[in-house]
């Protein structure tokens, strides 16, 4: 019997500990160094049009695959495979000139036919790319010669070039792109050991002016944040692409061997109401719920002193950012009044579909205790991310949910009444459409600012906070991206000294 409870005690002790990997560091540096990158986002597959998730963007975007344009870490769009482009007077015809001497990793030369096929992969019926609907404005793609691509749009789209930065130019003849890759980037795909690592090796035949500054990179994947940080402490990895909690940072803060960087993030945590169903079809009720939740306290609870409050879907990095934190600010008395105006003064009960991974359960617990103060009862229903995708995103079978939205410039989804949250306001839809058809970026920004103000004032969702983007790296590392823009992580400029 004694043995039985020793086993019990040992099992409990196991629950308390999490262990790191055995430390192995690469002694080489400079151009021959391999950069070991640690992340919690393992790709589901290697194809960004087949639901590869943010992991595939993090590992392959800009590293293995390139687009006609590149969205830089600072958020600007710059030419990449398209060295020049012209737009017709009516804004409907784009002519792109491709860079010279570009070859895929397989040795095949890049032609305009590859560009056409790559864009059509994203707009295809079967594509799971989030840009599919944005690029549906394309009515025709022509390839007058090997280095020229002409795209005709059905209506003007000022974000067209920006959206093209999401389109990988791939060699469609390379086989099944969900398990293999053939791009034009500074790295070739090495080996992908599912559940463990994905390696990239420098492409010495890279077409660009500057080749990768290191010999390659290995992405190490962890399911547990503690194990990820232990790997950094034991030198198994050199850099963590994004920290998941502030409490692990204490062990790096006072240590000169590590550098903590806080970049500007675009990831927002949303309490998304189903704006189609009662009582959330009434703006007063949504405003009441938004005003009853102390976002500042929630942010401190989860992120300590990191992170930023936002009053709308627009993060500070977007060209149409405006500080709207004072709209529907925390005010319990006002919330009670709004609730009565919405016809549910006596309170009501709703189910909150909560993804089962951090920080959602903690945030949901907080929301439940906050809303109890205005007589609103929250029933927390934890679901997996797969369930979220089918139940909430596809079937729209929910009252309210929580989700993080990682991309920049995504306020435009509120202009689409068919989106999962079902926000429908004709003025907003019209303003978003006008912004897309705008002649200049200044006009576009002004129109989206106007739309965003309405969206915020009607509390289409409750934008709880903007995540911090924290990269922790070994102090011997330089040249790594800080902002994790749209979860990209370019490794080609990283130098290990």
């Amino acid at each position, binding site marked *: *019997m004694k043995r*039985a*409870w020793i086993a*019990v*005690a040992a*099992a*409990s*002790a196991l*629950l*308390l500990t*999490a262990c790191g990997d055995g430390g192995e560091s690469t002694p080489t540096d400079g151009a021959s160094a391999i950069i070991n990158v640690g992340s919690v986002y393992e790709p589901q597959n290697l194809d960004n049009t087949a639901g590869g998730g943010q992991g595939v963007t993090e590992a392959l975007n800009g590293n293995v695959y390139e687009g006609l344009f590149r969205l830089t870490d600072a958020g600007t769009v710059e030419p990449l495979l398209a060295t020049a482009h012209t737009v017709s007077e009516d804004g409907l015809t784009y002519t792109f000139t491709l860079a010279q001497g570009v070859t895929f990793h397989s040795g095949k030369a890049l032609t305009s036919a590859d560009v056409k096929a790559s864009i059509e992969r994203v707009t295809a019926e079967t594509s799971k790319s989030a840009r599919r609907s944005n690029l549906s404005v394309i009515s025709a793609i022509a390839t007058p010669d090997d280095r020229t691509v002409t795209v005709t749009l059905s209506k003007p789209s000022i974000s067209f070039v920006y959206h093209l930065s999401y389109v990988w130019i791939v060699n469609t003849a390379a086989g099944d792109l969900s398990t293999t890759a053939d791009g034009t980037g500074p790295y070739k795909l090495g080996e992908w050991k599912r559940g463990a690592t994905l390696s990239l090796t420098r492409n010495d035949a890279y077409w660009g002016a500057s080749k990768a500054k290191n010999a390659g990179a290995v992405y190490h994947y962890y399911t547990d*944040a*503690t194990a990820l940080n232990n790997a950094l402490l034991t030198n198994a990895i050199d850099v963590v692409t994004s920290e*998941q*909690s502030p*409490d*692990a940072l*204490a*062990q790096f803060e006072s240590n000169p061997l590590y550098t903590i960087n806080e970049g500007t993030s675009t990831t927002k945590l949303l309490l998304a109401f189903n704006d189609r169903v009662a009582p959330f079809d009434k703006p007063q009720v949504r405003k009441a719920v938004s005003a009853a939740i102390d976002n500042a*306290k929630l942010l*401190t*609870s*989860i992120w*300590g002193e990191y992170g930023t409050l936002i009053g709308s879907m627009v993060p500070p990095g977007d060209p149409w950012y405006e500080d709207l934190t004072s709209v529907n600010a925390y005010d319990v008395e006002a919330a009670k009044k709004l609730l009565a105006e919405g016809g549910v003064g006596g309170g009501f009960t709703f189910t909150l579909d*909560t993804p*089962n991974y*951090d920080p959602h*359960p*903690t945030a*949901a*617990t*907080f929301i*439940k*205790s*906050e809303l*109890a103060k205005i007589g609103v009862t929250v029933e*927390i*229903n*934890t679901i997996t991310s797969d369930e979220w995708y089918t139940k909430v995103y596809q079937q729209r079978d929910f009252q309210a949910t929580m989700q993080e939205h990682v991309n920049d410039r995504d306020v435009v989804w509120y202009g689409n009444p068919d989106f999962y949250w079902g926000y429908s306001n004709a003025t907003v839809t019209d303003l978003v459409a006008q912004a897309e058809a705008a002649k200049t970026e200044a006009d576009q920004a002004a129109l989206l600012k106007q739309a965003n103000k309405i969206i915020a004032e009607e509390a289409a969702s409750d934008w709880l906070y903007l995540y911090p983007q924290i990269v922790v790296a070994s102090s011997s590392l330089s040249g790594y991206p800080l902002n994790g823009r749209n979860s990209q992580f370019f490794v080609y400029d990283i130098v290990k000294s």
Partner: protein
Amino acid sequence: MRRLHLIAGLLLVTVIGGAVLMSYLWLPFAPDDTSGGRLTPPGGDHWLGTDKLGRDLFSQLLVGGRIALGTALGAVTVGGLLGVLFGLLAGFASRWLDDAVAVALDILIAFPTLLLAMLIVAGFGASLGAAVLAIGLAMAAIVARLTRILVKQVLSKDFVTAARISGISWPRIVLTHVLPNIWPVVLVNLALQAGLAVLAEASLSYLGLGTPPPNASWGRMLFEAQATVLTAPVAAIAPGVALVALVIGINLTADGLRDLADPTRRRSR
């Protein structure tokens, strides 16, 4: 010496059980009171400090104890009733039915409790009821197998043959001859299983398959404390210690009970 086990075990279980009962009358803070500040260290008003949301950890621990003890009682009830019932049926059944039940029980025992729980959670959604049902079913298989063997032993005894010859009905034989002879062993086994049930519930909640938030299961508290283990170690240690203390307490009690129930062992001391 063996008595000491029983006394120590009962003491642990009584202290924890008493604290949990007390929690229904009085708690230092309401479980959803978030006024404590982020990760306040132990001391002052908050004896064990607070969690990330500012909730009092001692209150959470007491409320978590309700779930731990409730699961143990619930699972033992489900497992005990179903297990004894099926064990009796198998023990009395004809040869081929008995074999069929035995094979079914072996399969159920070989099936991991966690996997069974995941299946049930997939069907009913994550809740305390689903967790108790899963743990109870897994327990029922073990109890049923034990009961079946015990019943077979008793049925081969001469006094049962004598009772059958004198025309006593089967239900009566179960009540007057079988159950009185098997209950001590079954009871000790159930007590042991109760300790395992507490651990199983903690594991399920740790994996997010047990009680949904905001309920403070000890397993869920361990999960939440994991990210902050370096800055707030007490948040992880407290539920861990509570869990170990309760399980050891239950096991020591079962151990002591077995010695009381087993006359041969008692005499040999």
